[in-house]
């Protein structure tokens, strides 16, 4: 049964890779996504050395990936060291959804990041949340890679 599941998952991943490589329009895009979550660093900025400012999400999802959780733990450690800093978590969606739903989705994504930071000891009164929905993409492209970069929560210094 378990083997079956592993096989099934492997198949799914393989299938996803096939689909993605078929969709990819330029060579640059290969290996920058896992599933449809962006894993590259093109758009990432740093809050401090080794502390990336953003995490990425799958389509319609607000679940934090392993990589996202690692990024947020780094952010939490940096925030603990710099206790005077307050932040805004800016939640975003890609252009493939209705505007109003995307506003709610951006808010949900930013809150997923907020909740995680809070479990790592960052007080909620240092964090505010702002959803932009699909209004502020970083990549203006209309392709799966661009969309994956745009599904994000960005931690921005507020002071």
């Amino acid at each position, binding site marked *: 049964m378990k083997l079956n599941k592993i096989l099934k998952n492997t198949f799914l991943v393989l299938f996803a890779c096939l689909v993605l490589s078929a969709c990819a*329009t330029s060579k640059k895009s290969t290996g920058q996504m896992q599933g449809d979550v962006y894993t590259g660093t093109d758009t990432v900025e740093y809050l401090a050395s080794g502390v990336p400012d953003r995490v990425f999400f799958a389509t319609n999802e607000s679940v934090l990936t392993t990589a996202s959780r690692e990024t947020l733990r780094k952010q939490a450690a940096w925030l603990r060291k710099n206790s005077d800093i307050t932040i805004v978590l800016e939640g975003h969606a890609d*252009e493939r959804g*209705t505007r109003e739903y995307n*506003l*709610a989705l951006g808010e949900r994504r930013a809150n997923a990041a907020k909740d995680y930071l809070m479990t790592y000891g960052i007080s909620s009164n240092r964090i505010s949340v702002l*959803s932009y929905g699909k209004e502020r993409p970083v990549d203006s492209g*209309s392709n799966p890679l661009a969309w994956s970069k745009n599904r994000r929560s960005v931690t921005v210094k507020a002071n």
Partner: protein
Amino acid sequence: MRNLIILFLIFIIPSKALGLIEVDITRGNLNPLPIAVSPLSIDDQSKKSFEKTLKKKDIGSEISKVIEKNLKTSGLFNPLDKNAFLQAPDIAHLKPRFEDWNLIKAQALITGKVKNVDDKLRVEFRLWDVLAGKEMMALAFTTVPNNWRRVGHIITDKVYERLTGEKGYFDTRIIYVAEEGPKTKRIKKLAIMDQDGANNKFLTLGNELVLTPRFNPTSQMVTYLSYFRNLPRVYLLDIETGIQEVVGDFPGMTFAPRFSPDGKKIIMSFAKDGNSDIYTMDLENRIVEKITNHPSIDTSPSYSPDGKFICFNSDRSGYQQIYVMKSDGSNVKRISFGNGLYGTPVWSPRGDLIAFTKLHKGKFYIGVMRTDGSGERLLTENFYQEAPSWSPNGRVLIFYRETKTDDKGEGFSAKLWSIDLTGYNERLVDTPTDASDPSWSSLLSN
């Protein structure tokens, strides 16, 4: 606006229902009715005085152009070429020679007369059935000269109503979001225009992001989302006075606003801690009520025209679907069960249908379904389109459509489109800039 104009409706001859020409608007009209819109006649003195005040050489002919364009855009009428008209406008208005109009295949004829009466614009018009050789209706209006385009729209509404048996939608306005600049730094302003694209006016300067404006069905108020001071909140705007105010005192983002059909409440979403629920606020006593209470995203609420029900968008099943509930939040029922995701439900002003956006296999559709979810009908398919808004008679939908950005980052555009409920007569709605989030007003007169 309603108070600004003085409209005197004088029935010259009471029109009787004689069972003359009729236009069927319930199916796609592939044979639009040939109609002749004779330029409205005008005496020389009136012509000169209006030329001075309105800067239009022949206001009679300008009004007839407004009517002609309206009729053509409706898709139900085919206005005939004026060059083929044999009879002079003033004589046609007194007594049309029906043989002449028959000869150019006109089935209906509109004639009229414009006159300056005490510096007011007096317009009378008649609608004729060419085949039966009979007058179908005759009306006259007096108003301030600046309202000349509205006179054209009101005449079209009367003609449309007489020939189709349903109210028109021409004396109306569209509020929308005007867009400029690169996709990553889009500048958005509220804009308003007449239904035919004339009299476009920007209502905000573009300093802050604004989204989803919607008309109050009973007044010239608008509700919309503004990112003023980076706090996304629902606002109320009076288009006559320009006065704006934030709606309610919510400790977080409020969005997706709409008015109740009586115009007395605003219904919207409030997002807190990653959860969006639907709330109403009474504009008179400011009482806030929570309508949905569910850990999913509940948004895009829209009332039924009798105010008894609300349709909305929720992902409580895992994905975006359309739900209907009583207006107190009870009896929540999912109504969309087709393949794909469903969003932006809007209840038709006729009450029988809900228009929506659907995403399926990477394509976006505008469609309609009955209020129990049956009879789903997709009207148009595209790369991206959403946010339908009904014409006040429930016959036409306006929405916005975006085009793909190519690999060089070029080619993006956002435009308004309209389509008949029948799925026919899809049209680009001209706007001076890119445009999105259209909302159709009620009829301004009557």
